[in-house]
């Protein structure tokens, strides 16, 4: 039942990802690449790249596109619904209770304690993407491009959207 799978693939990361959309990225990757096998890690990277090149929240863009790819417009709606609806409904319905706990050290502890696990998932995902790229275009292209991207984005603080568009043009011309 593809609709149920799309729902679960985005519902599970949505209810576990504390600290906003970016923490849900590796959890989504686990579901759509490792668990359901809908795409390779490189295809996931491509979707993530375009998601980063466009404005707006990342998690919903990924859910909207992957849901669409797997099960059409309805799949897209289900993916987005599973991503945003549970915690939004909880926020509106449980406001009174949550208001009391909003500055609780326990809430901070929840975000704090899952960060190392998210770091591991992100690190492993980074490694697998590097390996995929290395097998695809070789070491020189992979690490050369990564070095240039690092210098531009991390050191010179160039906006990732420009670097991603630049890499697409470079890839189309040189790697094609």
């Amino acid at each position, binding site marked *: 039942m593809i609709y149920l799978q799309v729902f679960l693939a985005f519902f599970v990361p949505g*209810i576990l990802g504390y600290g*906003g*959309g*970016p923490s849900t990225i590796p*959890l989504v990757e*686990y579901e759509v690449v490792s668990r359901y096998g809908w795409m390779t890690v490189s295809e996931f*990277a*491509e979707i*993530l*790249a*375009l*998601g*980063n090149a*466009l*404005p*707006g929240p*990342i*998690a919903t863009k990924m859910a909207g*596109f992957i849901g*669409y790819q797997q099960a059409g417009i309805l799949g*897209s709606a289900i993916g*987005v619904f599973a*991503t*945003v609806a*549970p*915690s*939004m409904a*909880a*926020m*509106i319905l449980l*406001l009174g209770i949550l*208001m009391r*706990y*909003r*500055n609780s050290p*326990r809430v901070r*502890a*929840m975000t704090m*304690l899952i960060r*190392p*696990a998210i*770091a*591991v998932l*992100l690190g*492993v*995902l980074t490694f697998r993407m590097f390996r995929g*790229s290395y097998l695809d275009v070789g070491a020189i292209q*992979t690490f050369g*491009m*990564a070095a240039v*991207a690092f210098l531009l*984005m991390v050191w010179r603080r160039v906006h*990732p*959207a420009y670097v991603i568009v630049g890499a*697409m*043009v*470079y*890839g*189309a011309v040189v790697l*094609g």
Partner: protein
Amino acid sequence: MRKNQLVQLFLAFFRVGMLGYGGGPSSIPLVHGEVVDRYRWMGSEEFGDILAIGNTLPGPIATKMAGYIGYRIAGLAGSLISVLALILPTIVLMILLLTSLSAYKDQPWVQGLSAGVVPVVCVLLADLTWQFVKRSWLDLGLLGSVVLIGASLIVISWLGVHPAIVIALLLGFALIKPGYNGSPTPEGSDEG
């Protein structure tokens, strides 16, 4: 009046969606600019409370804010309009771009284009990984962060446990761990 507010909610969150780069958390200041500075639907303090409440729950933060603020200003319709205005335009754009690309999937230049972005995404993810490691180190200390990172690595990568289970256990531990209730914390316990 109410119709007017729905239009304003749509415009406010449409702008946030189209101008906010780098995902939900980085667009929070834009949400503040719209709902506090431009439309004056609430003060900074209430906005801060809503943000804090949003952070007690999992999942994307920007949509939670849009959903709740829309609900507070104009009920269920306001909630729906705000969330859709925030996310729908870029989802449509994403679907259009990626499906037209996959129509030319066999062209060498499309394959090159796809291969070209992977190293950039690697760098973005490596940077994000480093941010999470750094924050863990600051919050949990060197020993705490190394132990938790090492344990997570072993359990998830070598033992192959589903990451959702590991994270659910960590969240459960944070909820039942003693020490946050009884004796007041340095800042003073404000639970209950």
